[in-house]
């Protein structure tokens, strides 16, 4: 029953560089909208109970939160067109309060939709080839990847074709819709890992062998949550055409043997730990033998078909240095400062990628208004090819800006609150919605982010501190990636009061932490909310005193361990606020 795709008006010509739905994709998304509407109708009529509807709506990204439902929409591997972003803005206006929130998993969330509108929202999304499929629930979630895919100079190959192939494979996979727990897959294919790949249930690194063939390094069992673990390699050199069958084998072993008795021990990382990586790998290989040359074997034709969509748009031939741009950099200090943080390298001469910070002081990290979304969509067209990216750091990227356009873009961005020059710095905080929105929270996280931003509002000081990741989660679920923060803050609950535990030395695999993937170490007892800016200040002062030439915060922690930081932070009571007796279990 092929429903008419809801008013699809995409022009493929405008969209060089992005996957475009064919009849199959359209039909699946349209059938999903019809299925969801029917489920919602039965729920409202009382023939689907709350318990029966919950897993169904979660697989459509719909949570019931503190204030209202929350709808999470997938931005597969972080790639968006300007048309899609405009629709996200329209949805924010039409069904929500005029803003939305970019998450750490390349999704976007609406905090205030009405349940009865959710079917219409999905239909509007379908009209621009978007959906909320499997953005929550115990199934394979949105596939995430490198936000600089296709433009980064250090790229080995473009990870997006494989990410799209995996997106399709995992969408409504009949066998893996009711896994023990959620399942996250990331794909990375550059020298720098920008996708926190080692913190995923499956992490795939695409590499090239000596003959130029694509090989896959397969990690399993990474994750955050209350048992943070860095994934382990279970397979090297897997030929690319076996990717789907290998992932299928992993999922079948997990689906059959992962724990289902305790939600906190249900992730694949617990199974891998219990069996040991070698035994787990053995079971996967044993399963895979039956699948490896079967129908799931990828074909060159299919890979090439998908890859063709991601072929770079035609860039102009530009000089690699733009004299006018150089002059503006020299003359205009605020512009220079912004460019120093926001502008990233591009493989085509004369072009740059621009990271728009969604972290100005006082705005919840990752929040963006409908008006800003529309502006960004306009810029993506004026200063690029109508395409943009979202990052797991909760920022937005314009991937193809000419050097000669940077100044104009900056001026416009400034007029719309999108030119904060803090990318990669202390105030570019990764932060979950926390107690302000989330019913699972132990503590608020957004006000902590804001308090730290206010304390460190001196840009010179921020730049002097340099590259650092500060990540905040409102509870052990770790949505704010605190375990992987160079500084991590975790909200904990003590007798009904909100406290914060601090860890240092985590790293997400990116070059900010010199490529390491590591779990932060807790420095000691927790603090009350109003102590947090001072605690961070003491950590930073300790670093500045200890640092040698060119050392970043994370380097010093690596060299000295946590001891000097701990000593300094606890030397005197912080802001006369008493400390909680002991750290909550880690």
């Amino acid at each position, binding site marked *: 029953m092929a429903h008419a795709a809801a008013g*699809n*008006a995409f022009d493929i010509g405008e969209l060089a560089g992005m996957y475009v739905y064919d009849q199959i994709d359209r*039909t699946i998304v349209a059938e999903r909208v019809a*299925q969801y509407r029917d*489920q919602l109708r039965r729920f409202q009529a009382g023939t689907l109970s709350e318990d029966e509807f919950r897993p169904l709506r979660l697989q459509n990204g719909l949570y019931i939160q503190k204030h209202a439902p929350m709808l999470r929409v997938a931005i597969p591997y972080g790639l968006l067109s300007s048309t899609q972003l405009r629709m996200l803005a329209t949805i924010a206006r039409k069904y929500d309060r005029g803003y939305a929130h970019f998450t750490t998993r390349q999704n976007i969330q609406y905090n205030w939709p009405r349940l009865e509108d959710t079917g219409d929202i999905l239909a509007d999304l379908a009209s621009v080839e978007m959906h909320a499929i499997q953005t929550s629930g115990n199934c394979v979630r949105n596939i995430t990847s490198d936000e600089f895919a296709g433009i980064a100079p250090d790229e080995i190959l473009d990870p997006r074709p494989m990410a799209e192939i995996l997106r399709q494979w995992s969408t409504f996979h009949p066998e893996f819709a009711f896994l023990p727990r959620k399942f996250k897959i990331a794909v990375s294919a550059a020298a720098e890992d920008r996708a926190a790949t080692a913190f995923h249930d499956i992490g795939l690194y695409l590499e090239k062998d000596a003959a130029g063939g694509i090989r896959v390094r397969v990690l399993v069992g990474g994750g955050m949550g209350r048992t943070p673990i860095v994934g382990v390699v279970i397979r090297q050199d897997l030929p690319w055409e076996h990717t789907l069958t290998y992932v299928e084998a992993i999922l079948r072993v997990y689906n059959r043997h992962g724990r*289902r008795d305790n939600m906190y021990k249900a992730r694949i990382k617990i199974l891998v730990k219990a069996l040991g990586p070698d035994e787990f790998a053995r079971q996967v290989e044993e399963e895979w033998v039956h699948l490896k040359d079967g*129908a799931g074997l990828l074909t060159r*034709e299919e890979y090439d078909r998908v890859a063709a969509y991601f072929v770079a748009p035609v860039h102009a031939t530009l000089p690699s240095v733009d004299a006018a741009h150089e002059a503006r950099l020299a003359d205009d200090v605020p512009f220079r400062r912004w460019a120093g943080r926001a502008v990233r390298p591009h493989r085509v001469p004369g072009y740059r990628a621009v990271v728009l910070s969604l972290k100005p002081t006082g705005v919840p990290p990752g929040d963006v208004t409908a008006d800003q979304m529309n502006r960004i969509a306009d810029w993506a067209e004026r200063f690029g090819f109508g395409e943009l990216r979202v990052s797991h750091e909760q920022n937005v990227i314009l991937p193809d800006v000419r050097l000669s356009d940077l100044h104009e873009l900056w001026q416009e961005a400034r007029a719309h609150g999108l030119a904060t020059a803090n990318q990669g710095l202390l105030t570019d905080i990764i932060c979950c919605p926390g107690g302000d929105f989330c019913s699972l929270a132990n503590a608020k996280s957004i006000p902590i982010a804001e308090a730290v931003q206010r304390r460190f509002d001196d840009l010179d000081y921020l730049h002097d501190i340099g590259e650092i990741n500060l990540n905040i989660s409102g509870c052990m679920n770790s949505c704010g990636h605190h375990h992987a923060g160079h500084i991590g803050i975790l909200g904990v609950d003590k007798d009904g009061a909100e406290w914060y535990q601090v860890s240092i030395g985590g790293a997400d695999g990116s070059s900010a932490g010199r490529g390491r993937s590591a779990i932060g170490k807790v420095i000691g007892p927790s603090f009350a909310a109003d102590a947090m800016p001072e605690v961070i200040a003491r950590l930073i002062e300790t670093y500045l005193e200890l640092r040698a030439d060119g050392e970043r915060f994370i380097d010093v922690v690596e060299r000295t361990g946590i001891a000097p930081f701990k000593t300094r932070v606890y030397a005197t009571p912080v802001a006369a606020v008493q400390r909680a007796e002991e750290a909550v279990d880690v």
Partner: protein
Amino acid sequence: MSEIILRDRVVADTWQIHRPEAGTSPAVPAGHVLVPLAIWLGQADVIASRSDVGVWIAPHEDPATLRDSLDRLPVVAVDFPKFTDGRGYSIGHLLRTRYGYRGELRAIGDVLPDQLDYLRRVGFDAYAVRADKDIRDALRLLTTFSEPYQNSWEPPLPAFRRVARGQVTEVPR
């Protein structure tokens, strides 16, 4: 008599599901009956003469243990103690694709209409829809997605081997 969906029709269910209490006699009741895996494995030789005995398997049990019995079994049922327990999907898939079972494969337990499309695709062809649900209304959910991406039991080929991808046949409104 209760009803089930067999393939794409609602029919009367002729099978009893035998769920003996722990510690009770392993005797197999008369009539069409599905017995627990353990009873089957313990008495396969005795029961084998009866054509009215099938088996049901719990999600933690290994379908490989049935491998040698499959050609003698008219019905294999897989129990879903909770509809969110997805192990039965892998068990069904293995029975069909790996162990070659071709008889009736039935989902029992907490079987809800919204699971039918997935159950069908991994290899089930009979569905004991939970009694409080409208089994006739459930029929229309048997095929929710008309052109799935992946191979499973049904369809055996993924979209990229089954149809020409990359086309748009329908005129956008």
